Each structure stands twice: as structure tokens, then as C-alpha cells.
């Protein structure tokens, strides 16, 4: 093996009070070869970002590198003076960050910001710098670079900003690019563009990429090798193909099993019990021992050593230590069995039920929510943001309808419009033959009991000054279901039990709980009034994969037990595949296609649906599709394009598309598409 480009040995980084520090990175070893993509994978708080910042020596003021060696070729980075390190930053090592929105200086033009990096590391004349800036912008695929260089960050879209960040990092021709969650803040179609760009640039320049991410799909599609991080150190390192075929560490396995996917829909997702240990503790055994399904006595008393399992594949686990656990390891190698067979029966009832197509519980027809745009001193209305501009859906008892779309497509507004939490400006919402639009607050109250909502951010959706018991009991009190506090608290205890929490939680405040627990509390609050329908607005997108699995399992159980209908608003297609029965795809305020989940996912008819599906990074190699590249970004809902809203970005657009919005075409009893192409071919 050639000498590595960067070699990290027993790196230890601490945060906070030196007498009682958080060991956010604790004895980390890794090496990256020139030109390869190395992914550092882990859930939030595992120390992956702190590792990246340690390599750049850009730690926050309370952080410090306590021990270790970081060698870039022959340079020992931790021994450089700050002035010498500055030459490395943005020179031999570039870095891009998660939030392109806030990572660019708002008062300098993007050209100036790139020029700054060019000047430091190349020091050319003014004209040469300007030329180099344009060259860099062109290299990252920004159209009309001369013009764009003069613009300010807020004039660019999120994807464009991340391209600018990349251009800036490329200015010093880096040997290593550190990308810290570079696409997490971006939509999936934009993510596909940016990942593609990184690959192309890597091929052209031969730089290595250290990709910090929590997304297994992104790792599978872009990385050559990966390391899994848990509680401050690496628990497994492997070539990507080996890892996904044979994950060695129990934590890695659980992570993979907890990923939602279509073929797991008949059963439950694997979950990891407990919480990540506190990093201010001193560990005596394996850090994962308390949560591990294969835990042995030795795991609690001795720290497992690093073990090489195959060429380039290693793990920090006693299961692979032949002396400690010869037989146990082999047993643990086939972890999938238990999950798959769990409930074939439920899959059949699932299929059987999908044939019953009774009257819908709730239906929306041409729902519109337009917000007026005021302007000037007199606050005249000069236009409308057409946040929701014609959404028609049907929701049936005991079923899940996923409302899918990218950010800004109006899916959240549609959900709130259906519940009359935002006043719709047009269309109709019928719940059991009752029109809801236009009902006064008082007349709407009887229906509130049946229609509930769960939000994306479980903490923001709870009043921090209310006890959990009062949060959950709020609906019981407001709707007069349980007027006496004692009755309410009894019911609250039942509800906490129902969502898998200790009834003692009622006496505590929301901030005392983890993200996953908070979301359980919010679900309990919605369940308290015994609703028929729950609108779930991205309820798992703020959570880690393993926690997401718990919530998805819970939602599925509750649906089976209580016959709930879910309107599940999400951007995550793997969750859709796992959970939904029907899917409606939204683009720019309208539903472009809806139908049964397998119809949509296996045979998308609308070009936007196809592009969206193709952009999702997937773990399984055989399931990957050719990414259909969408150019540009979603237009503003205040000025939607003429005709079909999707036509300016549609790879299959033809002469009719700019002229009229396509009518809904019913392809089957369950399937509706709005596309001129479908109408043409029929």
C-alpha cells in the first residue's frame, strides 16, 4: 500500500472545562489515500464534525486537541505554528460545510469571497485573480460565471451557494477536500447535482475527499472506503462494498437494519435501545455495550482492541476476537433472519386491505392556499405566493397517504390547510361529508377531535413551561373530554404507556427528554383525543436513523391497533417506501402524480417523479437508477411558470407544455397523473 495522503493517529479532542472535559474525539486513527473518497459515518454527536475541525485546526474556542498526530504527507499538522497552518487551510486542505445558507459572508460578492482564497494561496495580479475566479465558478458548473461573480450570496439558490463554497475550497488546488455534511441541507435532486460535481472534480484534480455524513445512501454511492464513528471513536473501517455486504460491528449492522425500505414494509425496523453514552465519562468497556444485542460479560470490563477481519476491513468488537468469542461471532454474523420472517401474515392482510376501497374518510379537491404579497407604504396587494395551488387527495381509514415533495413545494402548508390551521383560499376539504373550509372556529371545534397533527421539531411543538402531563392532556381539557385533572392524568399515564414511555414522564418538563422521546410525547398528545386522522409533518426528519426507526415502528403499530389514517408529509422516499400505502407527489404547490405506493415507486409516470426517485441515493447497488439530472432549481411559487409548472426543468418537455397546465389523467382506479405526455400516449 502506498503512503497515505493523511494519517491520523490517536487523535483526542476535548471540549469545555479542562478538569471535566467532553472527549468528543477520543483516540481516533484513520488514514486516507491520495485520490480516494473516504467517508466518516455516524449519527449526531458521535464526533465526526469535531474530527474534521480538528484536522483543519478550526475548533471552537472551548475546544482543544489534547493528543495525537495528524500527518499530511510529511507535514505534522499539529506541530505547525498558526501562521504555517493558515497556509495549509484553503491550500493543501480545503473544507466545505453543511449550511451553504449561512457559510457565505452576506455582504461580500461571491466573486470577492473566492478571489480572497485565490489571492492568499496563489498571489496573482488583479486581472489574473478575476480570471481564475471565473474559471473556478465555471469548474463548479455555475452558468454565466462572469455575471454570477458579481452577485451576493442571497441572490443564489442553496445548491448554487454550495457550488460557490466548493469553488472557494478548490482555489488552493487542495490535495484533500473535507466535506462536512455537504448535501444535508439540500433537496435530493440538488444533492444529486452536488455529489456528481464532487465526483467529477475529484476525477479531474485527483484530490482526496473526506466525506462526513450520516447518510448511508450517500456513502454507498460516493465513497471508496468508510469508517463508522460511535461515541468519539471509530468502531469499524471497511471498503464500501464489503461494509454493505458484511457489516462487522453490531452498531453498523443495527444502523443498516434500521434504514426504512420497501422490502422491510411487512415488518418492524431494527432499533437500538438506549442512548449514546455521555462523553464526559471514562469508559472501561466497549462504548456500545449497553445498547448491544450481542453483548458479553467481557464487553463491560475490557475495551475491545482493533481487529483486522479481512483486507482493509477492521472493527473494534470482541465478537471478532477468536479467543474471546469464537462461536458467538459466527452466530451473530447472520443478523437479518429475525426481522424478515416476523410478519409475513401482516403483509398479506396489508395487501388484502389495500383492495378495499370504501368511501374516503377525508378528501381535498383543488385545495388552494395563496398568501398575499403586500408592498409599499399602503400595503397594497401586488401578487400572491401560490404556496398550495390545487391539491387533490383522498385519505382512507387505516391507511397512510404520503405527501412527497422537495422543500418549498407547499406540502406543509397543504397539511395545515387541510386541518384549517391555515385558512385555505380555494377548493374543498370534506371530512365525512362535512365541508371544513369556511367553518368558524366554534363550528370547527367538534372536528378537531378527529383531526390531529404531529410536527417536525418535537421540541418547538411543546410549550417549554408546561409539564409533559399537561402537554399531553391539553386536548382532553380543551375539548372537555376529561374535565377533572385526576381523570386526565390517568389517561395521560395510559397514553405514555401506549407510546412506550414511563408514565413518570408526565411530571417532567419537555427539555428533560431526548429528541425521539419528545416525538413520542407529541404523538401521545395527538392520540389523546382519539383522532381518526393524524397529519404527520416530517415527524422523523430531525431525528437520527436509529431513532427514526423507533418512531416509524410506533406509528405503524398504532395504525394497526387503532385504525388511524395518516397523512404523512415527507421528503424522504425511503420512509415513503416503508410506511405509505398511497403516495401523492407535489411540485410547486400542485400534486403531479398520485397512486398506490408500488405503482409510483416502481413505475413513475410523471417526469418529475422519475427524476426525484432517480436522485435518491440507495444502499443496494442493484437498485440504483441512472440519475435523471434536473437543471436549475424549483421556481418561486409567487411566479410559477406558464403552462405545466415543471416544463422549464423537464427533460421530456415538448411544445404543448408551456401553454397549458395538463389535466389530471386517470390511468387506473387508483392512479392519477397530470402530464401532457401521459395524455399524448394514451
Amino acid at each position: 500500500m502506498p503512503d497515505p495522503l493523511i494519517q491520523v493517529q490517536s487523535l483526542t479532542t476535548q471540549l469545555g472545562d479542562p478538569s471535566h472535559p467532553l472527549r468528543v474525539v477520543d483516540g481516533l486513527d484513520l488514514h486516507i489515500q491520495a485520490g480516494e473518497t473516504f467517508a466518516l459515518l455516524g449519527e449526531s454527536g458521535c464526533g465526526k464534525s469535531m474530527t474534521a475541525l480538528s484536522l483543519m485546526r478550526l475548533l471552537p474556542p472551548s475546544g482543544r486537541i489534547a493528543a495525537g498526530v495528524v500527518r499530511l504527507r510529511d507535514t505534522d499538522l499539529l506541530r505547525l505554528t498558526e501562521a504555517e497552518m493558515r497556509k495549509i487551510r484553503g491550500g493543501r486542505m480545503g473544507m466545505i460545510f453543511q449550511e451553504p445558507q449561512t457559510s457565505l459572508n452576506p455582504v461580500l460578492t461571491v466573486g470577492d469571497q473566492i478571489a480572497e482564497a485565490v489571492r492568499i494561496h496563489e498571489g496573482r495580479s488583479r486581472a489574473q485573480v478575476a480570471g481564475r475566479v471565473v474559471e473556478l465558478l465555471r469548474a463548479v458548473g455555475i452558468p454565466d460565471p462572469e455575471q454570477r461573480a458579481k452577485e451576493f450570496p442571497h441572490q443564489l439558490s442553496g445548491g448554487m451557494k454550495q457550488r460557490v463554497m466548493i469553488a472557494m475550497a478548490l482555489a488552493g488546488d487542495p490535495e484533500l477536500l473535507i466535506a462536512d455534511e455537504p448535501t444535508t441541507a439540500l433537496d435530493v435532486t440538488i444533492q444529486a447535482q452536488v455529489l456528481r460535481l464532487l465526483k467529477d472534480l475529484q476525477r479531474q484534480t485527483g484530490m482526496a475527499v473526506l466525506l462526513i455524513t450520516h447518510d448511508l445512501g450517500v456513502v454507498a454511492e460516493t465513497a471508496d472506503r468508510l469508517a463508522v464513528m460511535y461515541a468519539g471513536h471509530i468502531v469499524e473501517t471497511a471498503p464500501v462494498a464489503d461494509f454493505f455486504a458484511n457489516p462487522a460491528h453490531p452498531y453498523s449492522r443495527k444502523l443498516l437494519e434500521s434504514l426504512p425500505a420497501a422490502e422491510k414494509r411487512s415488518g418492524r425496523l431494527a432499533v437500538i435501545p438506549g442512548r449514546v453514552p455521555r462523553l464526559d465519562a471514562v469508559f472501561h468497556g466497549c462504548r456500545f455495550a449497553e445498547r448491544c444485542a450481542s453483548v458479553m460479560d467481557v464487553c463491560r470490563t475490557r475495551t475491545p482492541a482493533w481487529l483486522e477481519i479481512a483486507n482493509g476491513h477492521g472493527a473494534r468488537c470482541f465478537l471478532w476476537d477468536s479467543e474471546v468469542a469464537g462461536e458467538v461471532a459466527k452466530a451473530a454474523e447472520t443478523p437479518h433472519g429475525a426481522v424478515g420472517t416476523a410478519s409475513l401474515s401482516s403483509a398479506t392482510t396489508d395487501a388484502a386491505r389495500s383492495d378495499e376501497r370504501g368511501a374516503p374518510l377525508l378528501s381535498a379537491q383543488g385545495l388552494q392556499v395563496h398568501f398575499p404579497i403586500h408592498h409599499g407604504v399602503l400595503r397594497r396587494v401586488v401578487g400572491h405566493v401560490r404556496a398550495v395551488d390545487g391539491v387533490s387527495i383522498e385519505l382512507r381509514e387505516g391507511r397512510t397517504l404520503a405527501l412527497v415533495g422537495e422543500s418549498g413545494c407547499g406540502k406543509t402548508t397543504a397539511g395545515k390547510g387541510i386541518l384549517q390551521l391555515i385558512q385555505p383560499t380555494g377548493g374543498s376539504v370534506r371530512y365525512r361529508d362535512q365541508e371544513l373550509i369556511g367553518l368558524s372556529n366554534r363550528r370547527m371545534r367538534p372536528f378537531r377531535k378527529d383531526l390531529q397533527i404531529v410536527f417536525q421539531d418535537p421540541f418547538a411543538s411543546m410549550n417549554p413551561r408546561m409539564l409533559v402531563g399537561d402537554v399531553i392532556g391539553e386536548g382532553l381539557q380543551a375539548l372537555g373530554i376529561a374535565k377533572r385533572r385526576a381523570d386526565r392524568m390517568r389517561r395521560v399515564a395510559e397514553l405514555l404507556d401506549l407510546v412506550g414511555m414511563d408514565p413518570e414522564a408526565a411530571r417532567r418538563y419537555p427539555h428533560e427528554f431526548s429528541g425521539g422521546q419528545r416525538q413520542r410525547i407529541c404523538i401521545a398528545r395527538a392520540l389523546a383525543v382519539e383522532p381518526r386522522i393524524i397529519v404527520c409533518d416530517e415527524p422523523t426528519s430531525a431525528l437520527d436513523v436509529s431513532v427514526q426507526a423507533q418512531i416509524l415502528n410506533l406509528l405503524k403499530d398504532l395504525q394497526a391497533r387503532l385504525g388511524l389514517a395518516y397523512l404523512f408529509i415527507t421528503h424522504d422516499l425511503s420512509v415513503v417506501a416503508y410506511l405509505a400505502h398511497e403516495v401523492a407527489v407535489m411540485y410547486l404547490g400542485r400534486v403531479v402524480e398520485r397512486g398506490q405506493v408500488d405503482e409510483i415507486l416502481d413505475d413513475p409516470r410523471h417526469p418529475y417523479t422519475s427524476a426525484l426517485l432517480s436522485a435518491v441515493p440507495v444502499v443496494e447497488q442493484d437498485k440504483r437508477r441512472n440519475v435523471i439530472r434536473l437543471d436549475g432549481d424549483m421556481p418561486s411559487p409567487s411566479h410559477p411558470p406558464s403552462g405545466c409548472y415543471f416544463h422549464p426543468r423537464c427533460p421530456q418537455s415538448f411544445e404543448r407544455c408551456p401553454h397549458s397546465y395538463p389535466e389530471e389523467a386517470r390511468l387506473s382506479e387508483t392512479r392519477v397523473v397530470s402530464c401532457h405526455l401521459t395524455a399524448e400516449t394514451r
Partner: protein
Amino acid sequence: MRLDWTLRMASLVLAIWVLCALFAPVVGLHPTKVDLTAILAPPGERSLLGNDDLGRPVLARLLVGARTSLIVGCLVVAVSAAVGTLIGGIAGLSGGWVDALIARVIDLFMAFPGILLAIALAGVMGPGIDNVILALAAVGWVGYARLTRAQVLSLVGRDHVTAARALGRRTAMILLKHLLPLAFAPLLVEATFGVAAAVVAEAGLSFLGLGVQPPDASWGNMVRDGVSYLLVAPHLVIAPGAAIFLVVLSVNLLGDAFRDHLDVRLRVS
């Protein structure tokens, strides 16, 4: 709450202030008793803090002045906060033209620099402690109105308010359970600083001759009277000024600590 020595001292100063104000009338002081034999007597000679230009004991006047400043400070804040919170709350909750109108009125009052409007009002209405309170409250309500309005506007959009609406909570209950408890803390911080501002303002108005009138004692008019004898009897200026300074400093320190405490709690959540 962090309780280091500065905060302990601040609490001590405020406790003394309040005790003086409460007990000044009952301990038999003679703050207005003229004693021509003690004119401009330095501290320690005839009384602990000396005597003023009419031979009145400075300490006794200081204690009575504490009562004036405490009454004005508390009443001004109480009236301003009550009126301001109500107006700001109405604006934030009702929206539309009501909100637009109130916002304009708030802008209008904010357009007057500092204490100027209070000086003009007190000047026109004539001196007296009641007019001082009226003038300061007429200026003071704006800050609370603006803060309350901003708080309500930012809280109304939060998910837990939306969730409460989805659960069928009535508007009044949402105000009571979700908006006021969360808006209360910042308002309390504002009110704490408001006490300090009112104490300085009252003293300032009295210093200008627009507030409490002689022979009644106020820290402000004590400084005013003492300025003429600055060289021969500096204690006439130093003592009441130091009292104002210590009280204002202590209130501000407590207000700061209170705000930091709230900030930390918000950050944790």
C-alpha cells in the same frame, strides 16, 4: 442564578433601599427641620452625613428621598408595564388595521429622544410627584408595548400554539397558557431595568426643578440644592448622588443576572 459577590452586594444595597423607604416615616426623622446652627456642617460634626444649607440633616433627607425614589420607580413601572403590555398584546393578537395603527403610535412615541418628552410633559403639567409619575408612565409604556407586541408576534407562529389550536383551544386560553407565560420572562427583565430608569428619571426631573419640590426631599433635588455649595460642602452632592448611583447599579446588576439566567435556560431548551 449565579450569586457572586457583586450580586450579593447588589441585593444588600436594594434591601437597604427598600427598608429605608418603608421605615423612614416611622422612625421619627426630621428631614425638613431647619437648624441655623448646623448650616453646611460637614459629615460627623452634627450628624452622620452632615447638614445642608438650611442645617437640615442630610441622612434623614436621604432616607426620605429613598421613599420618593422607590415609590416613583415602582409606580412608574407598574403603570407603564400594565398599559404597555395590554396595548402591545392587543396589537400582536388582533393584527390587521388595529395592529398597524398601534405600531404607528409606538413608532411615534419612539421618535422622541430619551427623557425629553417626559421633561416637556412634567414641565407643562407642573411639578409634583404625581405629575412625575404620569409623565414618566406616558413615556414608559411604549417600551413594554413594543416588546409585548414583538413577543406575541413571534410566539403565535410557534408549533406549540398551532398544536393547541389543532386541539381546539380557545383563543383566550392560548393567550393564557401559551403566550403570556413565555412572554412574561422578557417583560420582567425589561421591568427590572425599567425601575432603574425610572429612579434616574425621577431624580433627573427633580434635579431640573420639574419633579419633587422643596422642602420635600428627593435625591434629585438634594443634588440640585447642593450644587451651589460644591466647594464648601461637597457632601451635599456626593451623598445623594452616590445613593442614586448605587441603587441604579444594583438594579442593573440584578437585571443582567436575571437576563443571563433566562438566556441560559432558553439555550438549554
